[in-house]
């Protein structure tokens, strides 16, 4: 019943004048289908709606057909089919080209974590003083994803983007919470905090890349690695702000001081492997202008982290 009614009503609708011709015919019968519309079940009303919808396309004010009637039109069917095919084409195009701009497969390596790894990493960020082995564990010349090697007796420090990403978002939310408890919150402030922190991150990455280029360091430190390392300080910032919310300024300064020291040590130990040459990384102080310069660079990067941690959070704790 349904398709037959559609087939009959479908073809004339594509041209304008048959619909004009149909309206006077349906005008006398307007009252009856209208009443039947309100009273009968959806099956009946859809049948009537299909027959009346062609007349209603050109004259929307004449009757009140339910919205569902439009979905049963052949034109809307075609529109839906066209839209879905367009979406499929667009998705194909995006999938083909996304790998050129964002290395998706490489990014997946950075996000392959599990909760145990995240717990260990957080513990290491807060208390890096006892950890012995800081090398990245390799497996046939490519770094091992963190998920696979949780039970190794000597720990390792692969780089993952998951803790910094989570920490960044949590920092924005905690900042909103802190502003809210001081009655200074408004929704656009949240976006402002997020973009401000992102802008500082970008400035840091660019500054470090520039200084690495100037000192001609041949490292395997990729940009994503750098972003991940710089993102670790957000963990300390979150801890500081939360403590500041709970215990006031004393708690904030205590936790912030502790996390600053930890991030300082963590950064130095991590970057020493990447930036300095192998000989210096063993702990032997090598003379030479180049290595000294690299040591200064590592120190500067590590020292900038606590400064930024303080700068980005002190206005949140009053």
């Amino acid at each position: 019943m349904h398709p037959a009614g559609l087939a009959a009503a479908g073809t004339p609708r594509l041209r304008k004048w048959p619909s004009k011709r149909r309206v006077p015919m349906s005008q006398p019968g307007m009252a009856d289908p209208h009443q039947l519309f309100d009273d009968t079940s959806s099956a009946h009303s859809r049948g009537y709606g299909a027959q009346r919808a062609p007349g209603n396309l050109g004259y929307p004010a004449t009757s009140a057909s339910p919205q569902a009637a439009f979905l049963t039109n052949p034109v809307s069917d075609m529109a839906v089919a066209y839209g879905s095919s367009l979406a499929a084409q667009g998705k194909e195009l995006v999938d083909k080209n996304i790998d050129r701009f964002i290395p998706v497969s490489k990014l997946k390596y950075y996000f392959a974590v599990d909760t145990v790894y995240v717990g260990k990493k957080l513990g290491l960020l807060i208390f890096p003083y006892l950890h012995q082995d800081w090398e990245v564990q390799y497996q046939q010349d490519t770094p091992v994803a963190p998920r696979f090697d949780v039970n190794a007796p000597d720990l390792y420090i692969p780089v993952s983007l998951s803790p910094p990403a989570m920490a960044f978002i949590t920092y924005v939310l905690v900042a909103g919470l802190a502003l809210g408890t001081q009655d200074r919150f408004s929704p656009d402030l949240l976006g402002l905090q997020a973009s401000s922190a992102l802008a500082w991150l970008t400035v840091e990455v660019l500054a470090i890349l520039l200084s690495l280029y100037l000192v001609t360091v041949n490292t395997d430190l990729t940009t994503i690695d750098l972003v991940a390392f710089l993102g670790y300080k957000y963990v300390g910032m979150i801890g500081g702000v939360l403590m500041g919310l709970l215990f006031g300024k004393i708690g904030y300064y205590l936790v912030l001081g502790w996390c600053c020291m930890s991030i300082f040590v963590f950064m130095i130990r991590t970057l020493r492997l990447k930036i300095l040459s192998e000989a210096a990384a063993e702990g032997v102080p090598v003379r030479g202008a180049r290595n000294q310069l690299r040591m200064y660079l590592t120190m500067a990067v590590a020292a900038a982290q606590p400064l930024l941690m303080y700068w980005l959070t002190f206005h949140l704790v009053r």
Partner: protein
Amino acid sequence: MAFTLYSLLQAALLCVNAIAVLHEERFLKNIGWGTDQGIGGFGEEPGIKSQLMNLIRSVRTVMRVPLIIVNSVTIVLLLLFG
């Protein structure tokens, strides 16, 4: 602390403009930073100064045309929207 991405873009544009206006003959040569004065031997140690000079020269060469476009767009947008 309203340090938005937009102000970052503006600051970056101004910095690149500043690098691009350093004139080779009138200025850089006079302070010994010309590009033909810096290329030392083929040792492994380029040094910071020659790296900086290379950076300045490459920025000036590469960003000349895009800077024209981006500056014009920025000027028009700032005139229209303040």
